[in-house]
């Protein structure tokens, strides 16, 4: 399995990661190596094996419908990069 530079660019965009164009080839090489390592799995027949998503073979625990949280906007927005009028700001989003 080997990844092309185009594929790396496509995934990098999906993951919203800016990657230095000079380094794309190096990433492609590293990722291809890792995918080859991973591809060892394909040698095993797992047709009848049920996937295991989680180590705990249990049901989800639920919580009662109770409001437990108070307004902490000031605390939370102290660590925010850009806020105004209680809102988080991002560059203009066009719909």
């Amino acid at each position, binding site marked *: 399995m080997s990844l092309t530079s185009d594929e790396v660019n496509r995934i990098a*965009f*999906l993951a*919203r990661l800016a990657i230095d164009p000079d380094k794309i080839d190096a990433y492609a090489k590293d990722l291809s190596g890792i995918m080859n390592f991973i591809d060892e799995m394909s040698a095993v027949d797992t047709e009848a094996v049920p996937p295991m*998503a*989680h180590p*705990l073979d*249990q*049901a*989800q*625990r*639920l*919580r*009662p*419908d*109770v*409001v*437990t*949280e108070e*307004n*902490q*906007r000031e605390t*939370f*927005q102290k660590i925010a990069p*850009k806020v*105004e*009028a*209680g*809102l*988080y*700001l*991002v*560059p*203009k*989003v*066009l*719909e």
Partner: protein
Amino acid sequence: MQWETVIGLEIHAQLATKSKIFSGAATLYGAEPNTQACAIDLGLPGVLPVLNQEAVKMAVKFGLAIGATVSPRSVFARKNYFYPDLPKGYQISQFDLPVVSTGETTIVVDGEVKVIGITRAHLEEDAGKSLHEDFEGHTGIDLNRAGTPLLEIVSEPDMRSAKEAVAYMKKVHALVRYLEICDGNMQEGSFRCDANVSIRPKGQEKFGTRAEIKNLNSFRFVEKAINYEVLRQIEILENGGTIVQETRLYDANKDETRSMRSKEEANDYRYFPDPDLLPLEIAADFIESIRTQLPELPDQKKLRFKAQYGLTDYDAEVLTATRELASYFEQVALLSGSDPKLCANWVMGDLAAALNKASLEIEESPVDPQRLAGLIQRIADDTISGKIAKQVFEGLWASLESADAIIYREGLRQITDTGAIEAIIDAIIAENPAQVEGYRSGKDKLFGFFVGQAMKATEGKANPAQLNELLKKKLS
């Protein structure tokens, strides 16, 4: 070419829980920006979701109400995409194992009953809101709504017109309100839908390419957006073009749909089971206990109204459209002890018209069932005529008085004393010899003249039937 429209709806009903689906923050509408966004809703590093059991209960209620399968085991998955109103970079939703699957409901359009399949209903969290007013070239993000529980109700592509789509949406709207799992407030976005619209040549089996119209938050917009979209697609196909599968936005001001390219850039959502949440298991006895708590649903209520009150199909349909309206009608019928059809006419007629004019909901009516019942009793026992009743109703609407008090104060009681009516008729005959002559020589139309004169003399209070009878006798 004859075209057939195919529509499927994805309805988002905001569940009426006190706290959010995965956090203990409040879900109240209209709070100051970001004051109801806790650490979990903000997606701070290290936080974890814990599912609200009430949201699960509500989903089960809905499942039972549409005769669906409630999955004993369902799974929460992450839908991954970047958007500023989505704090974690993924939405917790359900993908291949939803909590509710394969149900159905019925709609009535133009007197025809039609079954609409409901593919699935799943639990998920809502996103926040982007405020596009300009903050020096920036968009503001309010995450109060982030994490609010939603039930996404996905229909089969079973609707063939905008009218059917609206009827279906209204039906689901009534259902969720009957079940008290959603307040149904469309202005606040508590109930909204995405419409998948495509067209195909009539008779063709294969579906056409669909466009998804996002975020329709009124019945009127659903109808208009679909109608616009259908015409747009017909025009493209008839000009030899092809439909692009895409997400579109309905612009109510321009009454048109337009492409939302921003959402199209990358729609590889990379769903996978959320490792923070184990499978949701719902025990059979829990489902049964909820079944016993279900209220009477619209379809059941409609059947009962027809049987118990002898109402027509149409009247029963209208009166059971919402739980509040049905309850209002039943109280009027009970309190008045009068003919249910008369009660139905008043509730659906004068009262509905007045509410509509004042933009009020039935539960906000200034005339409560008790007072309307009082009015209907007086019609039924001939104390007042139907015409005078309209006048009394205006009094009920404008004051807190009872119908009896208004009738007494205004002296609206109907004159049913034969002697009194005869005396008035005698006077009119004496004063209008020419008309009497004319009527007796065959001008039947003049009868109305005498009725009018008598009503004028009694200020409309003469019992109309009695008056007619006596007039005929005296004039013959």
